[in-house]
């Protein structure tokens, strides 16, 4: 908008209304931006529609039996995903137990003055770097480092405490335990980062009040700060759980891809995502339709978990922002 210093002949003011071109550009700009925003909404809708559409033949054929059947038999054309659903939930819950505990602890460690600020920043960067390491690299590391590392201990537990269901089989190679260990490491950065933000939202006044009452540092942390940030931390755990449910490659490489339901930590298992990764590329028509159905189930599970996590997160930041 160039403003000429000479007054236009029939005008009393320097100001000019935007030209027709500027109006048109503005209009077009808004429209394009709106299209951008609508694309995201349309994309999610299209993803749901497309996967759903592909799954329809398998849904008509096996119906809800698909969810409770335990066999994945390509020859007979009978498909069921109960072992995979079990494996997905079991591995993710165990990973959440380990990764969640370590993640929240690290969040406390980094926010409550255990380290001088410059070291806390470096440590935070270190944990963020974990998130940058690709899933396949963790898988490779799991095969050559974690499995040999945990195998002697696992087999010792199986020999001496084999009657406990968790240790009821030996670890011969890939299995649930190495998969869970790697999975917990992978969700750790997510849990730690969101928990740190949640704890950071707790007003400093509250902590000072606790100290003023004579609490020790840990009494302040465990009885005041963590409960205050509880909702935010729970959203960190829910989103970490969501990440664990959908994690694919490391699991496909480490869990053993065996369709069985077992409580044992050392037996091979399978997950929905790993099933897709290992079977999809070579699947023929009918198996592919069944896999699409499995993908739809995975989509539904993760979508529900993520929506819950996101809603809690939005709700807390809105509520805490007003304190």
């Amino acid at each position, binding site marked *: *908008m160039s403003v000429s210093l000479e007054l236009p002949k029939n005008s009393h003011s320097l100001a000019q209304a935007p030209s027709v071109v*500027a*109006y048109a*550009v*503005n209009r077009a*700009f*808004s429209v394009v*931006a*709106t*299209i*951008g*925003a*609508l694309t*995201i*909404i349309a*994309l999610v809708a299209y*993803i749901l529609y497309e*996967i759903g559409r592909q799954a329809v033949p398998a849904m008509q054929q096996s119906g809800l039996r698909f969810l409770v059947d335990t066999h994945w038999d390509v020859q007979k054309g009978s498909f069921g995903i109960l072992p995979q659903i079990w494996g997905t939930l079991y591995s993710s819950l165990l990973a959440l137990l380990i990764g969640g505990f*370590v993640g929240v*602890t690290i969040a406390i*460690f980094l926010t409550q003055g*255990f380290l001088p600020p410059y070291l806390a920043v470096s*440590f935070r960067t*270190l*944990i963020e770097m*974990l998130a*940058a*390491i*690709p*899933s*396949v*690299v963790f*898988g*490779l590391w799991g095969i*050559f*480092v974690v499995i040999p590392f945990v195998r002697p201990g696992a087999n010792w537990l199986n020999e001496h405490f084999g009657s406990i269901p968790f240790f009821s089989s030996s670890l011969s190679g890939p299995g649930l335990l190495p998969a869970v260990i790697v999975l917990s*490491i992978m969700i750790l950065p997510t849990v730690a980062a969101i928990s740190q933000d949640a704890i950071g939202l707790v007003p400093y006044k509250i902590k000072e009040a606790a100290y003023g009452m*004579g609490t*020790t540092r*840990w*009494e302040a942390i465990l009885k005041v700060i963590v409960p205050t940030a509880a909702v935010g931390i729970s959203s960190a755990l829910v989103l970490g759980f969501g990440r664990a*449910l*959908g994690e*694919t*490659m490391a699991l*496909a*490489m480490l869990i053993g891809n065996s369709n069985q339901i077992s409580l044992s930590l050392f037996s091979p298992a399978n997950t929905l*995502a790993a099933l*897709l*990764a290992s079977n999809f*590329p070579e699947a023929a028509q009918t198996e592919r339709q069944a896999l*699409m159905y499995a*993908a739809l189930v*995975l989509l539904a599970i*993760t*979508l529900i978990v*993520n929506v819950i996590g*996101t809603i809690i*997160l*939005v709700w807390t930041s809105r509520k805490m922002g007003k304190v």
Partner: protein
Amino acid sequence: MSADTGRQAGFERASDFAAPVNLAYNPFEFRGLKNSILTVGVWLVAILGAIPLFSVIYMLLVKGGARLNALLFTELPPAGFEAGGGIGNAIQGTLVTVAIAAIISIPIGMFAAIYLAEVRPDGQIAVWARFLSKVLTGFPSILAGVFVYAAVVLLMGSYSALAGGIALAVLMLPTVTLTAEGAMRMVPQKMKDAAIGMGCTKAQVAWSVTLPTALPSIVTGVILGVARVAGESAPLLFTALFSNYWLRSIREPTASLAILIYNFSSMPFENQIELAWAASLVLVVIILGFNILSRFIGRPQV
């Protein structure tokens, strides 16, 4: 004990007051002890949490570094019992698919972010788009592969680098949108108000004030998005597939570092395992390079 001290000091009516309490911090009393034990515990857990990263980096440097030479970048992957070979086409494939993803997702993400931050931040469309973007960031990456297989691969009739790039774009879009929106919201309202007061249209405010001011943070977001998808393998499994040859056209299947690592990790040949480690090292260096670059650009400029 403190009551005794009180009496010695001559406070005869000490009993008239509430019993004096020793308020000094005593590390051997139960509360102090609990405090110390928990502090040791939190240090142990923090160190435990850092071990995997160091172990991964150590393995990458030792196993991957052993194979790092010029041939690695120029040769094609070896077959079965073959010795030597490299991962040249996988590096090429990763760069091409990520570039396709960036070309698709950056413009859409930018315009969506402008809508969310500038055009109508509180409208129904914005609320839904923002919410769905957040949900999409937690979307399992393998499902992006399944979706693109159904929507693109079946339509085109073949696996292709283009399909792989589209799958990665689906995963990159929410990161770009949300970080760009955040960056634009950080631009002080005063600056926008001043521009509006000068008679700018919304488009002019966005284009000449908001975008240039927010650019460093936006670039950071875009680079982080690129870093995120560069290591993805699940969405490429059945979209870009794999190829043992150099990529000639984006309508052909292509190799990628991530898929090469996955394929080679399960092979019984020492040579392939070595290459998998070397490819991991290259991939991690690429991703960390992007991460460091983003920190460098996004550093708050005072």
